[in-house]
């Protein structure tokens, strides 16, 4: 029975993605992409990865969809630059052959299960019980630190390129009661996701994305106009994440002699402290990536 559901889901994902990439109208393709993103989040649940499903729905479909909608309104209409049919046919053949070879290669791969044993045997000493959070913030914390540096690099790039800050448009009187319920709900759920991340699916990235959603409702609803003071505070908060994580890594090295090795017994507090700082800074970074960091007057 579940096989039929899997088949239907994958067919849905493939054809939504094909429609998204084939469509002429910009807003239609962006909406198609958000639908495909939500279906993909469902497929992560089917593949037994709830943490990733949360992140995919919040960041992959939600925030990326908002970014795409903002840009689709500002870009010029699609130029007729699709290449001639003969060229397209050859490329389609090559792409199909590549996809077939890829599917065959992944299917016949022996799939040696090396990591599950390593993770389960070390999970007890990692300070958290959720294996994904343990991998993200203890076993491979270095990957996560560099990932926050990626967000930081994107922020500097957006600051230099400085696209126009989206001005909030009057959305009518219903927005205020909606925001009054949704924004506290987002803050509450973000805190809940952050706290439960240590044991059940959740964590800093999903909580940060939820918080960013709440901030965007405030920003676009016109309740928090992007004044220079607010934006500079947001920029400071965004920079805090990478600074806190790097200093914590170096601090751990001072205490225990190895980079990112938390003093034994206190791993849980280190992880939750870093995750709290990351949640706030990721929320600020994602919000600023959407609103564009205005160049503060340098005088």
């Amino acid at each position: 029975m579940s096989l039929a559901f899997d088949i239907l889901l994958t067919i849905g994902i493939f054809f939504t993605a094909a429609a998204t990439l084939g469509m002429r109208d910009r807003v239609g393709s962006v909406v198609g992409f958000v639908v495909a993103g939500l279906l993909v989040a469902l497929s992560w649940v089917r593949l037994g990865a709830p943490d990733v499903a949360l992140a995919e729905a919040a960041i992959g479909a939600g925030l990326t969809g908002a970014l795409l909608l903002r840009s689709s309104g500002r870009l010029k209409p699609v130029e007729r630059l699709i290449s001639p049919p003969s060229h397209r046919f050859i490329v389609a053949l090559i792409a199909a052959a590549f996809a077939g070879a890829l599917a065959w290669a992944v299917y016949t791969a022996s799939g040696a299960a090396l990591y599950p044993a390593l993770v389960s045997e070390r999970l007890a000493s990692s300070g958290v019980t959720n294996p994904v959070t343990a991998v993200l913030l203890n076993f491979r914390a270095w990957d996560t630190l560099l990932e926050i540096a990626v967000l930081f690099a994107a922020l500097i790039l957006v600051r230099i390129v400085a696209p126009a800050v989206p001005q909030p448009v009057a959305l009518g009187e219903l927005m205020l009661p909606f925001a009054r319920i949704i924004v506290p709900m987002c803050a509450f759920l973000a805190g809940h996701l952050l706290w439960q991340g240590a044991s059940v699916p959740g964590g800093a990235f999903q909580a940060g994305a939820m918080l960013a959603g709440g901030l965007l409702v405030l920003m676009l609803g016109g309740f928090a106009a992007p004044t220079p003071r607010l934006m500079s505070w947001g920029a400071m908060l965004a920079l805090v994440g990478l600074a806190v994580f790097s200093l914590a890594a170096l601090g751990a090295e001072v205490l225990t002699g190895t980079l990112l090795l938390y003093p034994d017994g206190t791993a849980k507090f280190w992880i939750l402290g870093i995750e709290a700082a990351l949640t706030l800074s990721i929320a600020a970074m994602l919000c600023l990536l959407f609103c564009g960091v205005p160049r503060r007057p340098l005088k």
Partner: protein
Amino acid sequence: MTSDLIYICAGSGLVGLALYRLSTCRDMLLRVLSLNVLAVGVAMLFLASARHAGITDAVPQAFVLTGIVVLVAVTAALLALAERVDGQDDE
């Protein structure tokens, strides 16, 4: 095992679809969309091959989570650039 095959085929299909569209169109927004679809395809291949005897291995989940966050950062940068390039004419 067969449900993994379905997701493996879907993942590689998405990769093929994205590569086809990436190499046949010049429009900026469609290129950003196809790069996102390519990343989703790669993530699907990662997670489909991460299922060993019923449980999903935690390390590829961390890889895909990191990939999603990296992807939203690069997409935001790409869209900021695209807006400036397209908006440059009428300024």
